[in-house]
């Protein structure tokens, strides 16, 4: 390398360094903007849900900015988000969180997609005392570590399918039931499993099949053959979209008759779209449904959110988008109550959150999880060839009656 080139490189790096230091002093709250940061999966295996999350954030930012922004100290501020692509990789997510905080000078964070990535980022935000409102990390272990700056608008994973067991017991005349379950071996699904174990203990029910599914799994014929042979009262499956799609495909192909089938990730798997009538009667856990009657002044209710979102992005919002939008509403509310940009004051305000959004009531428990919102269950019901998700539990929000037991395959067309 010759001298000129060396000089040139030194020069460039000097400029970059200067710019970097300037930009970090510019960020956070400047020019009437509150800058939030988020590492999000725009590529890699979580990219579709990552995009749902980002769309949810963006929709809320637009809406809040349009409707007067955030009022702090008598002045109105607008939201702005800096995004980085974490490539669905936890290590990368942690690096990016560090970069957002140290280089970009972000003082408030929004969560990434999935429990795994949230787990990777939480220690970083905690270290720098950066309040983070997250909408897509449901794993129970996030809320038992004593994090002080982590707030989740969604219900923790162990609550996903507990209701389903209660429902099965209720349908069984209050008597304990036989449960067959298959869960993927990842943080989220194993938390869902813990919830089932709790529910089984509480109701005195017996778990007769307890299979764990590997990450690469796309064949669960063996589990289903066992289910066929042992005839449980309820079958519970959780393995992200892959688990939901595999289960329905093979249950219908192997003609497995089980009175009740409960799952997670049905709407992310577009279950009724991909499997049509074969998915009918499946019971699915969901954080949100458009038919719920919660309201707020920014999005109106769930149905209006659904309509506006469709208009903006061209598809119906999955709950991942709805909860992401709710995260922004929580931030806005906290800033206004804190009436300051002091991080600890904002944190304390977040801690004291008690509000209703279109997505549900939000109030944070001691671990930062949302304790004010129940999970809902919907059931896939078909009319002719069009299938829809109908809310069946809890009874307060139910639009349809829970159909039980599932008719045997010999009677299904």
């Amino acid at each position, binding site marked *: 390398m010759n001298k000129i080139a060396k000089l040139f490189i030194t020069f460039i790096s000097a400029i970059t360094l200067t710019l970097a230091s300037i930009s970090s002093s510019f960020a956070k709250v400047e020019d009437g903007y509150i800058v939030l940061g988020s590492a999000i999966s725009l590529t890699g295996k979580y990219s579709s849900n990552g995009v749902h999350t980002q769309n949810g954030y963006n929709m809320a930012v637009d809406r809040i900015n349009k409707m007067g922004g955030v009022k702090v100290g008598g002045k109105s501020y607008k939201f702005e988000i800096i995004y980085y692509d974490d490539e669905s990789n936890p290590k990368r997510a942690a690096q990016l969180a560090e970069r957002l905080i140290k280089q970009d000078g972000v003082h408030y964070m929004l969560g990434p997609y999935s429990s795994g990535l949230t787990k990777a980022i939480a220690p970083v935000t905690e270290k720098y005392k950066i309040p983070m409102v997250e909408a897509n990390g449901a794993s129970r272990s996030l809320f038992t570590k004593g994090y002080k700056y982590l707030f989740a608008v969604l219900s923790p994973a162990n609550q996903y399918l507990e209701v389903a067991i209660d429902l099965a017991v209720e349908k069984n005349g209050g008597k304990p039931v036989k449960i067959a379950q298959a869960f993927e071996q990842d943080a989220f699904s194993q938390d869902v499993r813990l919830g089932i174990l709790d529910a089984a203990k509480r109701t005195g029910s017996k778990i007769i099949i307890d299979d764990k599914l*590997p990450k690469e*799994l796309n*064949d669960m014929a*063996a589990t289903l053959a066992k289910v*066929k042979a042992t005839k449980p009262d309820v079958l519970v499956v959780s393995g992200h*979209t892959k688990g939901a*799609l595999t289960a329905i*495909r093979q249950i219908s192909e192997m003609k497995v008759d089980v009175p009740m089938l409960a799952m997670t990730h049905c709407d992310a798997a577009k279950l009724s779209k991909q499997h049509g009538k074969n998915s009918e009667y499946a019971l699915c856990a969901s954080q949100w449904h458009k038919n719920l009657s919660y309201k707020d002044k920014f999005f109106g209710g769930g149905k209006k959110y659904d309509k506006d979102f469709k208009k903006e992005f061209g598809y119906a919002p999955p709950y991942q988008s709805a909860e992401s939008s709710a995260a922004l509403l929580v931030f806005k509310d906290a800033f206004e109550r804190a009436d300051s940009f002091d991080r600890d004051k904002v944190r304390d305000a977040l801690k004291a959150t008690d509000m209703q959004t279109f997505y549900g009531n939000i109030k944070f428990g001691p671990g930062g999880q949302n304790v004010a919102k129940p999970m809902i269950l919907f059931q896939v019901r078909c009319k002719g060839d069009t299938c829809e998700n109908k809310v069946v539990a809890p009874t307060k929000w139910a639009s349809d009656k829970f159909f039980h037991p599932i008719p045997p395959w010999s009677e299904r067309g």
Partner: protein
Amino acid sequence: MDFLIFQAPMLMVQASMDGILLGILFALIAYGMALQWGVMNIINIAQGDLVILGGYIAYTMYLAGIHPAWGVIVSPIIMYFVGWALYKLVINKVVDRDLFISILATFGIAIVFQQLMNFIFGADVVVAQSGYGTTMLFDNSVTLPNSKIFSAFISLVYAVALVVYMKKSRLGRAIRATAQNARAAKILGVDTEKVYAATFGINAALCGIAGALISITLTLHPYVGLPYTVRSFMIVIVAGLGNLPAVAISGMGLGLFEEFADYILGTEFRIGAVFMLLVFILVYRRFKLSKKREYLK
């Protein structure tokens, strides 16, 4: 550990049938691998990703309203050219080199393919519906999805066709000659460069067929290629190169082994058991070889 399977004979029948039907499909993928391994001395890590790409071709047809079963004809044709292009772009540069280099190169191809598929088709898990229904045996206690029977049947048809082709056709003979001794074949006027390209194309086409079958029997996702690579690698290790009946039998054996491991050890060890078996077989082979060497001494 779960010994339910030994208490219920019907479960045993179910597991065996599932295993054999799936095994035949694995054997098809493995045969492609054995072919190009034998001819070019390349271990293709991207084998599974070629399979998944083939599956996405069938899925795309399904989305366009064409029955995905036609994928077993369309997908190999497209995949042949994908394989051929891959050879011209990358493989021809590593074909005579160290085995390690070809492993690295195909590993790189695998990553590129995964990301491309993720980019084009999205990260969602997808399935194509064949609507073939189910065959029920023994008073409904054993159920066989017709799509699995269909896939085993198609795999067999293609395998037989390929064997005949390799025996009778000019290109087939040229491929076999190159596998035996590339230099001698070259001297006798075989265009080995062409043979290599065709072999890689045929391998990719076989993957395409298998992928189309997987799209209607199992599920597709950009990142599930690796288990197929490992399975075919293992089948080839057991069966040896260029021995189709052995590949078919070891394919079915692996399918059976997987199903029984699933029942007895639990589903979480299904893929793990395959890896364990691989280690065991490699150690056993080494042990046998070292004995042979002792005789030679």
